[in-house]
């Protein structure tokens, strides 16, 4: 992936980065949370926190990862979780280009897995099935080997199978 020229310019200044990348990051948060209002809150709070410690290394992929972590924190909160699950019912169905065993990864599955998997696995789950990264892109994005990504995906699938078995019993 080539770095974007416009993006590099924006990285010099948090306000410029917010204007240039804010919409992309809000759309990303929206895909995880299925709530535009919560997505705006997540991205706005992220930039507000980053203003005092902004560096030119904070590019769009870095912020993408930060948004993933923040969204997962939102889902971890049980109060938020109930509200998001309710809102997901009325949100437009996601495209679901990359599916986890024929299942679109939505708030419900993320919420179920966030109690079972650590941050590292959750980041792979979101990267692969919500952000639609290929395994190679995801390895590069997270600074991991392709083999590690594969192992984490296997573990994610195992947990989903356990979940299904528990639901069935």
């Amino acid at each position, binding site marked *: 992936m080539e770095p974007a020229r416009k993006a590099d310019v924006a990285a010099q200044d948090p306000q410029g980065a917010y204007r240039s990348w804010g919409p992309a990051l*809000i759309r990303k948060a929206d895909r995880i949370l299925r709530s535009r209002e919560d997505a705006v809150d997540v991205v706005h709070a992220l930039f507000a926190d980053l203003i005092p410690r902004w560096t030119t290394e904070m590019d769009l992929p870095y912020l993408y990862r930060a948004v993933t972590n923040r969204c997962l924190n939102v889902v971890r909160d049980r109060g938020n979780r109930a509200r998001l699950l309710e809102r997901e019912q009325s949100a437009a169905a996601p495209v679901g280009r990359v599916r986890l065993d024929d299942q679109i990864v939505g708030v419900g599955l993320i919420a179920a897995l966030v109690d079972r998997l650590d941050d590292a696995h959750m980041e792979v789950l979101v990267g692969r099935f919500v952000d639609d990264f290929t395994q190679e892109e995801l390895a590069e994005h997270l600074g991991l080997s392709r083999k590690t990504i594969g192992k984490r995906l296997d573990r994610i699938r195992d947990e989903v199978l356990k979940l299904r078995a528990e639901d069935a019993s």
Partner: protein
Amino acid sequence: MSASCISEPISWLRLERFVLDGRDAAVAIHVASCAVCSACLAEIRSDVVALPPLVAPATPERKPWFNWRWVVPAMAAAAAAIVVLVIIGREPTRHEHVATIKGAGEVVVGVVRERAGTIRRDVTTFLPGDRWKVVITCAPGPSSLWVDVAVLDAAGIDYPLAPAQLSCGNEIVVPGAFEITGSAVNVVCARLDADGIPVREPPKPGDPGVACIMLSPERPAPP
């Protein structure tokens, strides 16, 4: 819409970057022949996002180091602070915002202040109208934690938020927000319990399962 891409879908990040700079030729070629990815690209282009204004955190103003006008109110505030410290037994130290809870480990309690749209996590001073949230940080795990927030001042104790059950994580927000009024020092304490809703006893910094933060008024009330 069919969710089947003709080959490997173009990630959302690549699509977003393509919208920003249009330089990734592989994306252009792919979307020309893939209806699904083309629709995703069109979704990005047609999306309208209302960005709320991003306000930089306020920087402290330089003020004269001494002003006679504040002597009496400052002394009143200091007296109130002493009363609070007498009530709660002793002054909270830096580490009293951390409690060790059986089943959850070390739990760090923090506060978030919202003032005129500016959100700050690094401040412990207040003005009337500020809104405060309490956040907890603890190692993620299967266990959950009950949190009950109490606010103490010279006048007594208040419980502004309902007890909440939270999963551990980084800066997990306790649902709800509150304001602090008056011109005296306030102490925000969270009583934490992994087993159930904590019993509402007046908390003291240093008590088992209690973590506290002291909030100070930015300026004393006018005489």
